[in-house]
């Protein structure tokens, strides 16, 4: 721990990692709260896994074709938004087969990514960093991209808060009030997609759904309005990512997995605490 505090001053990569963690937490708390309230973590999972396809293709074009300006993260942004719109369209239209179609897209996106990564030199280490995160290797360029995405997500997520809230709670009613439900639903999923890309840099795409949903799930146990859930989820997400970096530094553990373990522990503790409190209350009432 002391080693970690000393290292912050000297290590530019660690500073970047901390900054990315804190910035990403803002988008994470806002969009994660929508995802948890609307119960669409499965859709968010599908979008997250499709980003591997975009990252794989971008990396192939970068290394093999020679498009050096194209970074894997750019491919992830594009793939995530395309996946969000396709999956959103499927969930609006194909009500009965929604889960089947999303599962198929989920796996297909990953398959495309793995195929392109296999055809690109330097297979192993890059694949691992996409899947499980490489927050300690975030470049300054990545940091700017993450900050820009964060601003977009936060601005639109707050400007259209009332619309998104109405569409999430009761889409049919919102439509009758003249709200373009399809547009706002697809916009919401696109913002979830951008948030997923931001979080992929922090914990990798396999762990993204836990970081997106657990802070909001913890927060919704204590808060009863969506904006309150958002504020608390942002705080929990920041604490988890910073604590994940700090605790993993000296023992040289993977920071992404450490962050998720902290989130999951906090979630479990919340549920247990709620249980104990409510059983105490019933005992009081009975006694």
């Amino acid at each position, binding site marked *: 721990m002391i080693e970690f505090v000393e290292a912050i001053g000297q290590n530019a990569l660690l500073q970047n990692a901390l900054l990315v963690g804190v910035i990403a937490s803002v988008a994470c708390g806002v969009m994660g*709260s929508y995802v948890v309230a609307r*119960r669409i973590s499965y859709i968010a999972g599908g979008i997250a896994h499709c980003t591997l396809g975009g990252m794989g293709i971008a990396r192939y074009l970068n290394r093999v074709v020679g498009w050096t300006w194209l970074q894997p993260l750019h491919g992830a942004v594009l793939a995530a938004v395309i996946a969000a719109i396709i999956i959103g369209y499927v969930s609006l239209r194909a009500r009965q087969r929604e889960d089947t179609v999303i599962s198929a897209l989920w796996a297909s996106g990953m398959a495309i990514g793995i195929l392109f990564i296999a055809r690109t030199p330097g297979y192993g280490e890059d694949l691992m960093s996409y899947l499980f995160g490489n927050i300690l290797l975030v470049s300054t360029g990545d940091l700017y991209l993450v900050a820009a995405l964060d601003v977009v997500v936060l601005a639109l997520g707050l400007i259209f808060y*009332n619309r998104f*809230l109405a569409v999430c*709670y009761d889409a049919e009613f919102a439509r009758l*009030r003249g709200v373009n439900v399809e547009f706002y639903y697809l916009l919401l999923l696109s913002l979830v997609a951008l948030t997923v890309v931001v979080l992929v840099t922090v914990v990798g795409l396999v762990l993204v759904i836990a970081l997106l949903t657990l802070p909001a799930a913890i927060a919704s146990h204590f808060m*009863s*309005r969506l904006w309150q859930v958002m504020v608390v989820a942002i705080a929990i997400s920041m604490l988890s990512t910073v604590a994940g970096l700090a605790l993993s530094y000296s023992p040289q553990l993977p920071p992404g997995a450490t962050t998720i373990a902290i989130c999951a522990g906090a979630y479990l503790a919340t549920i247990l605490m709620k249980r104990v409190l409510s059983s105490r209350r019933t005992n009081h009432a009975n006694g």
Partner: protein
Amino acid sequence: MTDSDLAIKFDGVSFAYDRETVVDNASFSIAHRDFVGVIGPNGGGKSTLVKLMLGVLKPQKGTIEVLGHTPHRACRRIGYMPQNSHLDPEFPVSALDVVLMGRLGITSAAGPYKPTDRQAAMHALDEVGLADLAHRPLRALSGGQRQRVLIARALAGEPELLILDEPTANLDPAVQDDLYDQLRELNKTITVVIVSHDVGFVSLYFKTAICVSRKVHTHSTRDLTNQQVTDMYGREVRLIHRDNLETGKCCD
């Protein structure tokens, strides 16, 4: 009566899900400030008829006019309360948050709600007797209170036509009576259409009954007979007429 006096007008309307006809050649009209009960057996097409009025479903045949326009153009002037069952009771919103959703389509296209929206929402909550609970989380409210929140949401848009789908489903009898009294008060200025499975009370409160079981018939509730209702439901159903109730007679 000219068409401009009509709140709703169906002309030869048919609607089928796939091949199963649910509404068959319905023609009827509802005047402004009528108090209408839509009754009929389960699966008879009551909710389908309401969704046609709202423009959520489009008829395969015939035309529908609501407040002098197509349902799609009129829908913002309608206050609609859906059945509660499809809504998530754990959703993180307060009662006021839900009622404010009734202001969409009136308030600005983006950004926060305006003070006038909040006033209208509070007024609507007051009308259903829930002003004190405006800031309560939705999940802390009882089923009956949640139902009234949805009625307030329908009222918040200052509608000219109020359509309520089974508003008394979760309410105690005493609260039901209160609600009907409140609706009768509202009915002095706006048209009220209520879907109800509660046939017994139809003639007690409503002026007009729309009887739906594939075919659609309208009756003045004074003229509705036990035999007509029994034929529609396929078993004996008794009506309670207000006149009879007031004079203490049972209807036979």
